[in-house]
């Protein structure tokens, strides 16, 4: 029984019309959650959490950098998973998902790089250091740009989707390999200096706001991705009856 209804849900998720209807409430929920969590987390982390004994107040940028870095990677892996699903279950909606995640992913990765640099300035004394984390994030950025460039070069929507899915999958498989190799490289080439995440266990006053920020970032990503997907669905399905019905209903005519 459960499997039957799960299958039906799965099939519904693959249909743009049903996905659109289904996500109407999800979008609102994600948007509000993001707003609340981000405001709360920022205020808490940036304002009220205790100052770090070593870094003083500059560590607070961590509340932006760490969620951004986590999200950047998650979004790419999300694209890879979407690509895989699209390939196996032949769901074209997955390309809508990929196109939605891509610009957000690029922006978030850039934010992670920038915030990492800002964090590093008072800590390292320089705007950029080549350590494991920064290199991994930089490579992730290039992985995103690669898919972006690929999509720009292919005109046909279907082919573009297939190519993006392929590259996203290959990239996703490579992410752990790249991470591991860069970490290994880092242990050789950098003295065991203070790393951005090699901290002793953080007291809960520090990591609780971090958790809130992480959840807020992810909620924000969910919001943006869903909005983009819904917009893209409307765009692609413009000829369909349900779209004109929906638009009419919304404009209250």
């Amino acid at each position, binding site marked *: 029984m459960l499997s039957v209804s799960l299958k039906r849900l799965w099939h519904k998720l693959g249909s743009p019309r049903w996905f659109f209807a289904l996500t109407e409430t999800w979008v609102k929920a994600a948007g509000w959650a993001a707003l609340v969590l981000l405001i709360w987390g920022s205020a808490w982390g940036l304002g009220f959490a205790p100052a770090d004994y070593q870094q003083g107040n500059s560590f607070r940028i961590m509340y932006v950098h760490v969620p951004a870095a986590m999200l950047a990677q998650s979004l790419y892996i999300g694209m890879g998973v979407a690509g895989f699903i699209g390939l196996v279950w032949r769901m074209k909606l997955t390309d809508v998902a990929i196109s939605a995640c891509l610009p957000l992913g690029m922006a978030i990765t850039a934010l992670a790089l920038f915030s990492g640099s800002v964090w590093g300035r008072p800590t390292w004394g320089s705007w950029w250091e080549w350590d494991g984390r920064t290199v991994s994030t930089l490579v992730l950025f290039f992985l995103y740009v690669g898919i972006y460039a690929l999509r720009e070069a292919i005109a*046909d929507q279907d082919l573009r989707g297939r190519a993006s899915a392929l590259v996203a999958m290959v990239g996703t498989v490579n992410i752990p390999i790249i991470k591991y190799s860069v970490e290994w490289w880092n242990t050789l080439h950098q003295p065991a200096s203070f790393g951005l995440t090699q901290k002793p266990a953080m007291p809960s006053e520090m990591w609780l706001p971090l958790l809130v920020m992480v959840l807020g970032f992810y909620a924000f990503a969910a919001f943006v991705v869903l909005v983009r997907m819904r917009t893209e669905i409307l765009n692609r399905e413009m000829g369909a009856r349900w779209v004109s019905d929906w638009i009419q209903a919304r404009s209250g005519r």
Partner: protein
Amino acid sequence: MLELEEIVCERDGRGLFAPVSISVQAGEYIELTGPNGAGKSTLLRTLAGLHSRYSGVFESVDCLYQGHRLGLDGLLTPLENFTWFLGLEEQTPDHERFLGALQRTGVLEKAYQPCSDMSAGQQRRVAMARWLLSSRSLWLLDEPLTALDASAQKVLVQIISEHCQAGGAVVCATHGELAIPEKRSVRLEVVASTAETPTPDDSLGVRTSQG
């Protein structure tokens, strides 16, 4: 040999022509006609497995495909090309057969020259010779008259007729007509309007009608 049910090839998310349903039997020669851009080439490529965007059902079969591109390596001689081609089909190469095929299409004297040294017409004849060597029963030919002079065109008609008589089948897209007896003509009608057929709700969803 090949059954097509309500096939519509697609590009950029739009159907190219009105749905076609064809049943290709052994021994048949089928000519695809229609205006430029109707999608004749695309249909052939779909049947060959090179184009995957379509709706409708057909079961793909092993076939010989000859597109606009020759499919010959210019650096290699015809004989070397044939050896490679038969390697693809996992047949054993037979030097005598190769020479026989080249003689049939009238380019025997070019057997030992790289294909890039030949004229377009001669290269087309080499491609035709390759058809004779293939073990596939179904031939999909896209504009086979291209670059053929009068004598080559006669050879083309003979080769196709013989193949059909021997139990093979040929689906051919051509602007000029081939004088082959008992041919069947299938016309592809271009879908006139771009504000098209109502899209079903699942147009982006799970593909249920793939062959």
